[in-house]
């Protein structure tokens, strides 16, 4: 039996299905908890027994709302788990909080780029993460209250497929927000604050209790998660395939086979798609889903608390909502907790109005007056409520949320003034990413010298000189990141210039590499302390990539195909006659992309008969002109020479020279190809030089025509290959600052 002022309502509290007063309630226990460090999120529990003559109580539905009322005020809200009849007219009921209810349901996650905490929390509670029209738990949504500033906290990062409780926990953990019982049975999303503590009088503290000093924690380690997607490096992979299954006529959820979020639009083949996100899709039909997977990189932020080698290391590794944006603040929050918590006091109190998360002052079991937060509370109702409490003392909480909210890009050189808003933070802090100048692009390779075509050689046995390949894109500048706490008012900075491209190459097998770019400095820090990265670094707020190795994703595959030199022309014997392959063209795609200029291969030289020179257009005898040289970006291939006759001596024509690649690639970070790409060039490697054109094949000879004629003949050489072009200059360095 409990105090008559207690009421338990089952169902809609304004029109309950069952109502029990204190006389009908045999016993009642309520367990609540709020993790003061924020590292846990528990499900509150309610257990009670009642006398009830209505047997339909046993059939009360799962998740029926249960409201605890005391002295006409709503104190708690729970949701039914099960009812068990223990005796005639006696029922035991177990219930859980909204958090417990959510642990039974799946959430298909999401990737967040600054959506508000309220938006994300509502999505978790009300939907499966895919179907945005769902409203699964309006009863829980109606209970939520957001403390000032909490609802608008931006959320960044990934939530993988998990249960809703875990998803909600990750959101709250990442932002230092607690979910605790509010007034009138509401659920309050709030931070912990240094409120004026409420006194618990000695006359309300039971004899007994205990005091435990805090464990020694020596190190905090927080894993920061970054997800990047690069269409060049991250090739499409099959995420889902049900082609071996019966066609599914009803909607189902296709879970992507990936351990990182999909950050590009997947290709859905054969499936009808209704909703999709980074982890899964709602579809019908039979087919496949493909997309490039993002890369997941982890870095550890650490905070040393003590030198004690025996001390424990507290690690938070798996919260993928801890990103560049909030990792420092998160680590600070844990550091502040473990550095300052002194003791945990346990005491039974006569509960007046205390609740979990409240800041209280009381006498502990050692007779000391302490101030702390109630982290756990087990309430047993009778005439009074006796509450077993755990109180964490010594901790001064920091505000929820926080982290970086702005980014600035510096180029060139000058002085940067730290914004005033930085100094208004609890811990003034900026994060500086220095990216050195990119290395110049490698030169193109020279074209290959054309060959000779002897009588009878067939296709495959003869070729013109191969065009030279384009060079390698330059490496990105070195990247160095530093976090500056309590920054100075301003900093001088200087961004390194991009390195020069490699000099033109006359070798078909060698490219001249570009020069390294200059270092970028910010105050006393320098990018020279960092390292290069093929994939560069992604700016957290705008998703642009800086400081990466030059590749072709910026321009498209077309450039990859056409920055090489053209092959020289060639001829071969086939079916008793000659066939020809014209020299290849080349394109200059650098000068006016996406438009381009075509460069052509050279023409073939004239042939000679026994009596005259004729255009080399027929299969007649006798001795042929050289084939044309291949084109290169910036020039047409050279023409093949005509066949020669001196008295009775004949020589076939020399192949045309391959064109030199003379187009100079634009400097990375120039305004080439429009401003939309411009930011991506900063710190990037230089564009590759173009390949030279291949030499044309030397002219061929119809040898049977010379047999017994008294004339002699010889084969001319193929044309020389053209030089590979110079590489492009690397992009100038830059600095990204988060604050």
């Amino acid at each position, binding site marked *: *039996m*409990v*105090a*008559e002022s207690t009421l338990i309502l089952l169902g809609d509290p304004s029109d309950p299905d069952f109502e029990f007063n*204190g*006389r009908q309630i045999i016993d009642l226990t309520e367990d609540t908890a709020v993790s003061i460090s924020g590292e846990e999120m528990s499900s509150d529990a309610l257990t009670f027994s009642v006398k009830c003559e209505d047997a339909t109580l046993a059939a009360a539905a799962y998740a029926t709302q249960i409201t605890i009322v005391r002295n006409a005020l709503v104190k708690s809200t729970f949701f039914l788990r099960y009812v068990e009849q223990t005796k005639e007219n006696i029922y035991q009921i177990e219930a859980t909080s909204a958090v417990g209810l959510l642990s039974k349901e799946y959430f298909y996650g999401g990737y967040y780029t600054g959506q508000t905490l309220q938006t994300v929390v509502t999505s978790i509670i009300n939907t499966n993460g895919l179907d945005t029209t769902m409203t699964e738990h309006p009863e829980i949504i109606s209970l939520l209250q957001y403390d000032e500033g909490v609802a608008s906290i931006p959320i960044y990062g990934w939530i993988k497929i998990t249960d809703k409780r875990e998803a909600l926990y990750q959101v709250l953990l990442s932002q230092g927000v607690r979910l605790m019982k509010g007034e009138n049975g509401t659920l309050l999303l709030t931070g912990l604050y240094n409120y004026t503590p409420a006194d618990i009088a*000695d*006359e*309300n*503290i*039971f*004899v007994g209790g205990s005091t435990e000093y805090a464990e020694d924690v020596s190190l905090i380690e927080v894993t920061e998660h970054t997800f990047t997607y690069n269409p060049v490096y991250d090739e499409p992979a099959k995420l889902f395939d049900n082609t071996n299954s019966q066609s599914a006529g009803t909607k189902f959820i296709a879970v992507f086979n990936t351990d990182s979020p999909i950050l590009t639009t997947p290709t859905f083949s054969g499936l009808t798609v209704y909703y999709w996100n980074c982890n899964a899709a709602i579809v019908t039909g039979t087919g496949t889903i493909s997309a490039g997977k993002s890369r997941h990189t982890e870095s550890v932020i650490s905070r040393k608390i003590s030198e004690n080698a025996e001390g424990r290391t507290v690690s938070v590794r798996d919260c993928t909502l801890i990103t560049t944006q909030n990792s420092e603040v998160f680590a600070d929050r844990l550091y502040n907790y473990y550095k300052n918590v002194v003791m945990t006091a346990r005491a*039974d109190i*006569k509960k007046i109005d205390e609740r979990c998360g409240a800041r209280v002052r009381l*006498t502990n079991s050692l007779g000391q007056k302490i101030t702390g937060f109630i982290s756990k509370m087990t309430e*047993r109702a*009778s*005439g*009074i*409520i*006796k509450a077993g409490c755990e109180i964490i003392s010594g901790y001064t909480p920091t505000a929820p949320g926080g982290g970086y909210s702005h980014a600035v890009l510096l180029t060139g050189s000058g002085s940067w003034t730290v914004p005033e808003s930085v100094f208004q933070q609890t811990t003034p802090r900026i994060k500086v990413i220095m990216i050195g100048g990119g290395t110049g692009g490698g030169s193109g390779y020279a074209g290959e010298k054309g060959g000779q075509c002897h009588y009878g050689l067939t296709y495959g046995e003869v070729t013109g000189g191969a065009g030279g390949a384009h060079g390698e894109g330059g490496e990105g500048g070195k990247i160095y990141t530093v976090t500056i706490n309590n920054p100075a008012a301003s900093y001088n900075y200087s961004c390194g210039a991009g390195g020069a491209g490699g000099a033109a190459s006359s070798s078909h097998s060698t490219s001249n590499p570009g020069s390294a770019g200059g270092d970028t400095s910010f105050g006393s820090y320098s990018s020279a302390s960092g390292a290069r990265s093929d994939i560069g670094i992604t700016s957290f707020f705008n998703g642009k990539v800086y400081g990466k190795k030059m590749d072709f994703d910026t321009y498209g595959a077309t450039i990859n195909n056409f920055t090489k030199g053209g092959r020289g022309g060639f001829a071969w014997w086939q079916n008793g006659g000659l066939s020809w392959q014209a020299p290849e063209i080349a394109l200059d795609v650098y000068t006016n992309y996406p438009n381009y200029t075509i460069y052509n291969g050279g023409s073939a030289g004239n042939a000679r008969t026994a009596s005259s020179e004729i255009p080399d257009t027929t299969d007649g005898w006798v001795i042929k002109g050289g084939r044309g040289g291949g084109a290169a970006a910036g020039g047409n291939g050279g023409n093949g020479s005509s066949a020669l006759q001196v008295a009775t001596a004949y020589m076939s024509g020399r192949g045309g020279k391959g064109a030199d690649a003379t187009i100079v690639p634009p400097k990375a970070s120039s305004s080439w190809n429009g401003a939309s790409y411009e930011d991506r060039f900063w710190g990037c490697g230089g564009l590759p030089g173009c390949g030279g054109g291949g030499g044309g094949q030397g002219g061929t000879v119809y040898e049977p025509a010379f047999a017994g004629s008294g004339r002699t003949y010889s084969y001319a050489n193929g044309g020389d290959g053209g030089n590979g072009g110079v590489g492009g200059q690397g992009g100038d360095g830059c600095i990204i600052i988060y604050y």
Partner: protein
Amino acid sequence: MATTKIIVDEVEYNIRIRYETLRRAFEIYEGPNSGTAINGKMIRDIIGTKYWYQIDIEADPADPESYDSFYQMISSPDESHEVTFPYGQTTITFDAVIQSGEDKFMGMVGGKNRWSGLSITFMALEPQRG
């Protein structure tokens, strides 16, 4: 003999209460949350007040059947009985637990068995006020 009426389960029995044998008592009933505070004060977990009534019964010689009915009723294996007793200048009605009783056979008079010395304690099933 007193003329006080005894009503049990809404039935009035024609029996007599021996003079000056109706006694009452109370107990402030406390729950499991009672204890002692660190400053030495009691922390009380008051559920309510339980009342006790004790009476000695005699049969009306002219109506021994009524006594027999009363005996049959109070010795029935029921959880409780609703009883009404004097309370101040009025009455109090509550569910009472009867756990035991004993009387003595006094022989036969006028062809009827006589019983005497029945003493009953009525203990409140649950606290009355709280």
